[in-house]
């Protein structure tokens, strides 16, 4: 009998074209996603070497990071350099026959929102992209991970990567998340405990009752942010929920293909007795809404907790890093996080820019108004999410409450377009990174769930959303 294999090893083995050496394999990539800013130099490399793209139908590109989100009918990229990135992407895609979701395509959006919502992500795939949040696809049982531009060129030219095999980690989450506690809170709590490099070198498989109970969109959020613990991938074995999602979004998997696909997907799980290099266990019942206080996603506390006391942190890098973070976020040690005044709210991103996220935020906002002195914006993750939200009237809820309802894109998650915060502005944000300067030089980011960001918008302070009466 063969030794039991983890789900991750099965995915690597089923995509190994050749073994290169003890650590590396030539890994076949089913889908390669591209954006406008990490691909141009890769295309340039192909032209320079006279190389082609042998399998263009396994590649797709999206304009997402630089795109303006002003609610204008036709979007015009005002910055000449960014406009060139967009036109250059179209030129490259046209040249090599690569499918594209261009600037003014009604379906344009963030790559990690667009790909699954149009059925491009299926269980058992290997998906790569010049973007670290490609770990998102573990939610559907696909191995996704981010790559650099040299590797983008490698994939374009060969549809493979020279891939160093990762180690196996399993994170089991028992129990159920309480009402008002989301996948965002869970993943922040996990990162808070294991640290920003707690999963460095590992592909993390999530399992347990709490994971099974999560919706597919919540699983996207969880797997998306697993990269913030340094992981090289996140996986959840596809269950009926995941398979239903894929079938609903991928109508081409029909008749005989569907039977074969369903049979193949049954095998996509870690064998009984699989050995993981590291295992962690969490209890979902211990998780409260989380808010980051520092400049790394692991600098996070529950809403009823305080910014740590420096003396309680181990002397050395951890303490000095906390000190530096507190200087940047202008929070004194021991301050209660709840009640911290904010000036800006951002709801969106590949972490929390999907329809369920907007519904959760709208449920808090309905019948209320954005607090005085607060600027709040909603940027849907894609054109399809925006249309779905408008069909449900969520746009009205946000606009009536004083939010800006904008066009889709990455926007203020990394502030590469014109949505940039000014120095010292404090933002309640549903994004994934609270790094120094991420949302603008000197701007302060507090990561939290959509409901928590909505609660901050209407109160003007970091607030426990569970304390606001939710009107459905």
């Amino acid at each position, binding site marked *: 009998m063969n030794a039991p294999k983890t789900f991750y090893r099965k995915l690597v083995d*089923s*995509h190994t*074209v*050749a073994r290169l050496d003890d*650590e*590396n394999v*030539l890994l076949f990539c*089913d*889908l390669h996603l591209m954006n406008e*800013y990490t691909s*141009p130099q890769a295309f*340039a*490399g192909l032209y320079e070497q006279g190389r082609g793209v*042998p*399998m*263009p*139908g*396994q590649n797709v590109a999206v304009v997402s990071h*630089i795109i303006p989100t002003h609610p204008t009918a036709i979007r015009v990229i005002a910055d000449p350099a*960014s406009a060139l*990135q967009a036109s*250059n992407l179209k030129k490259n895609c046209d040249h090599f026959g690569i*499918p594209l979701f261009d600037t003014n395509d*009604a*379906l344009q959006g963030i790559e990690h929102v667009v790909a699954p919502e*149009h059925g*491009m992500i299926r269980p058992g795939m290997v998906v790569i992209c010049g973007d*670290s949040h490609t770990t998102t696809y573990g939610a559907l049982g696909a191995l996704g991970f*981010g*790559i650099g*531009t*040299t*590797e983008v*060129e*490698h994939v374009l030219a*060969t*549809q*493979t990567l*020279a891939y*160093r095999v990762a180690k196996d980690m399993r994170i089991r989450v028992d129990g159920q998340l309480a009402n008002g506690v989301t996948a965002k809170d869970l993943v922040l709590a996990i990162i808070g405990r294991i640290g*920003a*490099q707690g999963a*460095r070198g590992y592909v993390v498989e999530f399992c347990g009752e709490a994971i099974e109970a999560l919706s597919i969109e919540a699983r996207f959020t969880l797997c998306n942010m697993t990269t913030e613990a*340094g992981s*090289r991938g996140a996986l959840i074995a596809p269950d009926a929920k995941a398979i239903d999602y894929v079938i609903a979004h*991928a109508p081409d998997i029909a008749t005989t293909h569907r039977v*074969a*696909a369903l049979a193949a997907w049954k095998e996509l799980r870690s064998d009984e007795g699989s050995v993981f290099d590291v295992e962690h266990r969490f209890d979902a019942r211990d998780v409260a809404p989380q808010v980051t206080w520092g400049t*790394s996603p692991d600098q996070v506390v529950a809403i009823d907790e305080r910014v740590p006391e420096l003396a309680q942190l181990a002397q050395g890098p951890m303490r*000095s*890093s906390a000190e*530096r973070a507190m200087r940047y976020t202008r929070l004194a040690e021991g301050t209660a996080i709840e009640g911290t005044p904010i000036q800006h709210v951002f709801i969106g991103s590949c972490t929390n820019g999907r329809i369920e996220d907007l519904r959760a935020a709208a449920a808090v906002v309905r019948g209320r108004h954005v607090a005085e002195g607060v600027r709040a914006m909603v940027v849907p993750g894609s054109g399809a999410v925006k249309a779905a939200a408008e069909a449900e009237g969520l746009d009205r809820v946000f606009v009536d409450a004083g939010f800006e309802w904008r066009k889709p894109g990455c926007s203020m998650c*990394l502030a*590469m377009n014109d949505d940039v915060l000014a*120095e010292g502005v404090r933002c309640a944000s549903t994004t994934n*990174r609270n*790094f120094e300067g*991420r949302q603008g*030089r*000197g701007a302060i980011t507090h990561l939290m769930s959509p409901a928590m960001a909505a609660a901050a918008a209407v109160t003007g302070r970091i607030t426990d959303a569970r304390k606001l009466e939710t009107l459905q």
Partner: protein
Amino acid sequence: MSDDAKKVLIEGRAAALRIENLDTDQIMPKQFLRGIDKSGLREGLLYDLRFDAQGRARPECVLNRPGYEGVSILIGGSNFGCGSSREHAVWGLQQFGIRAVVAPSYGEIFYSNAMNNRLLLVTLSEEEIARLMADADDIAGNAVTIDVGAQRLTSRSVDAGFELLPRHRKMFLEGLDSIGLSLTYQAQIAEFARGHWARAPWLKDVAAVARERLGQPTH
């Protein structure tokens, strides 16, 4: 090891950056990512650390201190280069003149990006890094030599071996056209794809099929 071709020496002066989790957003901020080539990234390197909001050099940044012009080795904190996949961070370090970074650990994508560009990343223990940082702080004692072939780093108070995976070692010492090498597997890749799609036909042209189903782009 006796082979001269395998003797790559990096000799230079070092500066210490005592920052944990120095992410690639800080190494190369967003406003420098708007190009379609690799140029112009020297200016952007560690921009907010090196310059204030008015663009004036910040004297507290080690890279602006007298005597630290032309440093080619950075000593960093753990999880150096975490975060975004932007390879611009590596290109920027190289354009600034950095030939090697020495730290306790690195972000995974940054690590691959660095290897693909032959920016050497040396991993040493926290204790060795602390001593190396102390050396780097002294302008008279911040010379560092890294013998890549021998996998050994020496400074005034550190003499330590370091690990490199065989593939990365080869990339450094011989240069490796990774794409060219993978293209020698072209026939195997095509053969693999045929088998893969025979088993899972729903994965063939997965992007093209979706795009076609969604129709031509509409405004």
